[in-house]
């Protein structure tokens, strides 16, 4: 049983890093990279061995309604792989990037706490435990956003912390109401109990959770904190926040709670579609007007989250396949784009698109990988973003949601437009830049190259033979209304 280790290893690493690190960060790097490599291996192993099965780990020998349980199925395995993959590349990118700040070992300790929180949220099968791990992840995230210790970073971190605590309080309220009506905290038992209760309870709790987790995943009416927080953090942390944190804490929790516990009530699916399409259009439009590269990418994250939510809201099997695939794709290309922004910021000292220029000579790796990532996020074949967006649009047409399909197409075109702007001004501009302040190190380059290769390679997941062993089990976990209850309780 490997699920507990996905929580123990990063927590232990964080503890040991704070214990043994001095002024130098060498031991912190060794420990965190070792921890993260073992985590990625464990996550890949658990994903490929799980398949359609579900394994439940009950803590300290008690049986399920009395204990906290960890649940491992295809969905959690899939999310664990995404989180730990992006975390490993983020650590590779951090090694030389984070040395420009003071006391870098604190960064690694906080980073490991962030991983602990996200792995815990994904692995747990107990709703209050989900809340606790979510707070661990958020606590590390607040500190990491403020890590640069500049005025703007404190401002962004404060804004993020206030919005985060409002949403956490709402989620705690929802958990309280759920406990009052079902007398249990295990998610599968809550789901089983709710089927016998008045649906009014579900609607009230779901409304509270929608606002709470909507704030966490930054869909459009709840997005105000995201552009500040994600653009002020150090680049590897921006990529962690945008690439995986809003998915682990927001989208994953929404899937677990609304699909597995509440059984996907149609009213909320419609709300997801509406919120998703608002996010796609408005955030793309706002991104078009940005000149700060990282801010533009942050707005782009909101619009891509809109695509995922639209796919979930359509609710057919194909649409959920598209949404699940887009979760993986967005994690890969958005992290890559934030690494590009980080290496440009390190090399030129600016992230204003107007002050950048032709970087082909000075930063060849960054320029070429940013081109791949831009084409991928804009949805051009043969890159991965094309396939997931295409699946979502086809699914919308198939389920008679023509208007939403048109919105998704317009959103795609707007995405193409603002990434053409990034390429035109930022990387292939008129002023040729030859001298750079600091060279981009090998670790940063290799992180970018790994993700750029993945942008192309991940497309093969859509080939039927490979899809059947990777994405289809995840979709079946989401789409089956009572499968989660059966799998956890009826063993």
């Amino acid at each position, binding site marked *: 049983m490997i699920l507990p280790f996905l929580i123990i290893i990063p927590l232990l690493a964080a503890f040991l890093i704070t214990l043994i690190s001095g002024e130098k960060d060498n031991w912190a790097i060794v420990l965190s990279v070792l921890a993260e490599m073992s985590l990625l291996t464990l996550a890949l192993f658990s994903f490929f061995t799980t398949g359609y099965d579900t394994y439940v780990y009950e803590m300290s020998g008690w049986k399920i309604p009395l204990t906290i349980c960890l649940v491992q199925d295809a969905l959690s395995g899939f999310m664990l792989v995404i989180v730990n993959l992006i975390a490993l590349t983020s650590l590779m990118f951090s090694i030389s990037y984070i040395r420009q700040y003071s006391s870098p070992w604190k960064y690694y300790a906080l980073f490991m706490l962030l991983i602990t929180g996200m792995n815990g949220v994904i692995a747990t099968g107990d709703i209050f435990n989900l809340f606790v791990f979510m707070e661990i992840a958020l606590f590390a995230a607040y500190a990491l956003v*403020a890590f640069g210790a500049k005025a703007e970073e*404190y*401002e962004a971190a*404060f804004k993020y912390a206030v919005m*985060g605590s*409002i949403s956490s309080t709402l989620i705690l*309220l929802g958990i309280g109401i759920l406990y009052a009506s079902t007398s249990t905290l295990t998610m599968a038992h809550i789901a089983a109990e709710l089927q016998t209760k008045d649906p009014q309870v579900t609607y009230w709790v779901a409304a509270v959770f929608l606002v709470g987790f909507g704030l966490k995943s930054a869909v459009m009416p709840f997005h105000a904190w995201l552009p500040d927080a994600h653009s002020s953090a150090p680049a590897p942390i921006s990529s962690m926040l945008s690439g995986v944190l809003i998915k682990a804490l927001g989208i994953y929790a929404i899937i677990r709670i609304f699909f597995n516990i509440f059984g996907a009530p149609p009213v909320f699916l419609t709300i997801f579609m509406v919120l998703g399409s608002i996010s796609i259009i408005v955030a793309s439009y706002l991104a078009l*007007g940005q000149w700060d590269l990282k801010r533009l990418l942050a707005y782009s994250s909101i619009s891509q989250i809109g695509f995922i939510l639209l796919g979930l809201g359509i609710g057919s099997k194909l649409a959920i396949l598209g949404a699940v695939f887009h979760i993986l794709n967005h994690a890969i290309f958005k992290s890559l784009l934030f690494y590009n922004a980080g290496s440009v910021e390190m090399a030129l000292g600016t992230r204003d698109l107007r002050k950048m220029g032709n970087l082909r000579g000075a930063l060849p790796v960054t320029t070429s990988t940013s081109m791949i990532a831009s084409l991928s996020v804009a949805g051009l074949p043969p890159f991965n973003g094309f396939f997931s967006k295409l699946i979502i649009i086809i699914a919308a047409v198939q389920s008679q949601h023509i208007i939403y399909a048109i919105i998704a197409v317009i959103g795609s075109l707007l995405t193409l437009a603002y990434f053409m702007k990034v390429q035109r001004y930022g990387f292939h501009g008129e002023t040729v830049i030859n001298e750079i302040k600091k060279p981009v190190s090998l670790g940063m380059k290799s992180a970018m190259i790994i993700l750029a290769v993945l942008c192309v390679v991940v497309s093969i997941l859509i080939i039927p033979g490979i899809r059947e062993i990777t994405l289809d089990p995840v979709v079946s976990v989401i789409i089956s209304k009572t499968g989660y209850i059966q799998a956890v309780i009826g063993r």
Partner: protein
Amino acid sequence: MIVYILCFTLFLVGIYGALTKRDLIKIILSLGIMGYAVNLMIILFAYKEGGSFAILVKDGINSNMVDPLPQALILTSIVIELGITAMLVALSIRLFQKYKTFDITKIRRLSG
């Protein structure tokens, strides 16, 4: 019923303060009020008129005890809130050092 309504009113007071106040410290206090309201509500869900505390009695089962689980949850949630509040206070001290003010309308370098 009246206690739940009062509790919810307290929650709304907290949300109102967090969304409308301009002073950093008042925002932190409002978040605290929100948290207390939710904690109180969860304790009230488990409360039962005339119930006793949840420990084993000498001659077998204590049949008239309140539900102890929410109390355990609230202890955890209080600890989390303490951490978050400490974080917010630390951030606001740093913000004061940088901007020389607690007024959020003057702390505005990020926009767009």
